[in-house]
């Protein structure tokens, strides 16, 4: 027995496990995480503009929003859903909790794996959106490092939120989570409209700032289509880093509580 094998090796072993499982379930994963964004883009980015009920330029507002949504949703779900099941009844997570590493490492690995899944969903939806909606006015893929930075921060933040949610709710409450947390988050997440468009409704403008999705959507706008009015990228990154730290702090605390009674 290798007595002093490093914690990082265990961490990567767990990550390898998640990647293997994700690869095996890839079609279901893509279906689960991208079907909704794809349908949104078909209706609002293709059908309605074709019918003349939407301005053609709307796709530039929609694409970053939908990208943010798919990124965030898949990150939060890929952490929260298995965790609820594994802590709640199948107890599958116990084998990892009994691995010879500090328990926090297991939580960290879940968040990293969730981040990767969020990124994957984003990287799938971006070209798919371009295909569905046609040329997007003002699309600037040249900022790839910034685009990627926002995607990573957004996915990580929502992945950590998934950890927090996954520890806090029981299997019976999954439906409730979607209707009471995820639902409002989508509708008030500046996905369909840029944040600056809320200038006319100041209450809303500031109320939505508690919604993490706002920063991901605005960050995607700032980097993908800089010509649309958007939130300052530094504010976006600052807010996401802050939320990530907050969710991780409470998420890992909840995780420790569930892992060790």
């Amino acid at each position, binding site marked *: 027995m290798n007595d002093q094998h490093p914690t990082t090796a265990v961490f990567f072993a767990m990550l390898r496990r998640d990647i293997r499982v994700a690869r095996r379930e890839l079609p279901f994963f893509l279906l689960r995480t991208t079907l909704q964004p794809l349908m949104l883009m078909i209706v609002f980015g293709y059908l309605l503009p074709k019918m003349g009920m939407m301005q053609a330029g709307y796709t530039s507002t929609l694409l970053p929003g939908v990208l943010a949504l798919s990124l965030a949703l898949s990150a939060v779900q890929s952490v929260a859903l298995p965790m609820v099941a594994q802590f709640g009844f199948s107890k599958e997570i116990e084998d990892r909790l*009994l691995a010879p*590493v500090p328990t926090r490492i297991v939580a960290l690995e879940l968040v990293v794996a969730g981040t990767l899944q969020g990124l994957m969903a984003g990287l799938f939806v971006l070209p798919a959106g371009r295909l569905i909606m046609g040329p997007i006015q003002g699309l600037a893929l040249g900022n790839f490092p910034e685009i990627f930075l926002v995607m990573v921060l957004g996915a990580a933040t929502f992945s950590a939120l998934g950890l927090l949610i996954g520890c806090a709710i029981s299997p019976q409450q999954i439906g409730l989570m979607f209707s009471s947390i995820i639902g409002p988050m989508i509708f008030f997440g500046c996905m369909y409209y840029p944040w600056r468009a809320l200038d006319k409704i100041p209450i809303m403008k500031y109320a939505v700032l508690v919604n993490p999705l706002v920063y991901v959507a605005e960050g995607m706008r700032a980097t993908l289509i800089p010509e649309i009015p958007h939130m300052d990228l530094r504010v976006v990154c600052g807010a996401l880093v802050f939320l990530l730290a907050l969710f991780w702090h409470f998420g890992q605390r909840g995780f420790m509580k569930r892992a060790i009674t």
Partner: protein
Amino acid sequence: MPTAIETRALRKIYPAPPARKRGGARTSTFAPRTAAPPQGVRAEGGGIAALDGLDLSVEDGEFFGLLGPNGAGKTTTIGILTTRVRATSGEAFVAGKNVRTEDVAVRRRIGIVPQIPNPDRSLNAIENLIFHGAYFGIATREAERRAMGLLEQFDIGDKAQSKVEELSGGQQQRLMIARALLHEPQVLFLDEPTVGLDPQARLALWDVLRRLHREGRTIVMTTHYMQEADELCNRLAIVDQGRLLACDSPTKLKALAPGDTRIDLTIDGDADAAAASCRTLDGVTRVDVAAPDILAYAARGGELIPALIRAVEQSGARVQNINLAKPSLESLFVSLTGRKLG
């Protein structure tokens, strides 16, 4: 001999469950309904005292049993020893490491077979073992070699590539044992490993456990089956309501059982008169009548049989049948707690 496990005044108070709402049938769709309500002892402050000052000591190489009824605190004890449950007070050491302050070192040295199999359902049988090996720093090729060996050893070699849900309950249980052994732990914990197995699978598992013990592994097993504890364990701790009632080898524990050996005599004739006659014998501690049987208790049961037969015949009756009931863990448990086990 080095000590595999040592606990001192281990206590665990679980917080009181939240008050149930009236009339609310809030049973989960997933969680199996518990057959009986928790019977833990209410602690001061409203919590449930699952363990109340448990002192245990297990030597290296022992097959140690924790015997007790449901709710005795067996799973809690295993939980503390395997770093998944924090003791409220007291100390516990496994393989010389403190479970609270050296949890990673403890986890590296133990293998656990849980009460309910918890395989990784997203992986097939052999992947369960290989990834488990990876969590313990074992290279894939080596893990694969050990995994195949263990699967063969437990007669599930042909299931290596099967999905976990394609395995029967007994096969899943054996997969869990294989997983627990893959990293060659110093101490193997099994929590009620035979619950839910059919008799054949149970016997097969007993063989596996005996073999592991012969190979020199330290085994700690919980059970609420006396026969199982009796057959397998070197030493037994009888626990109830979080307290240690007795701890010794099964033979010595049975010797502690009251009434010693019980001799059941089926009488042809007047059972009461026969019983009265038997009570006059030296060495007979008690005689009960359960016509047509009389039940005689004696310290050295076997030797008294001829005298008992003569005593019955002197009373004018005859003995039709004789049965010796050895002292059992059951009778010890009954005498210690006034309740039946399990």
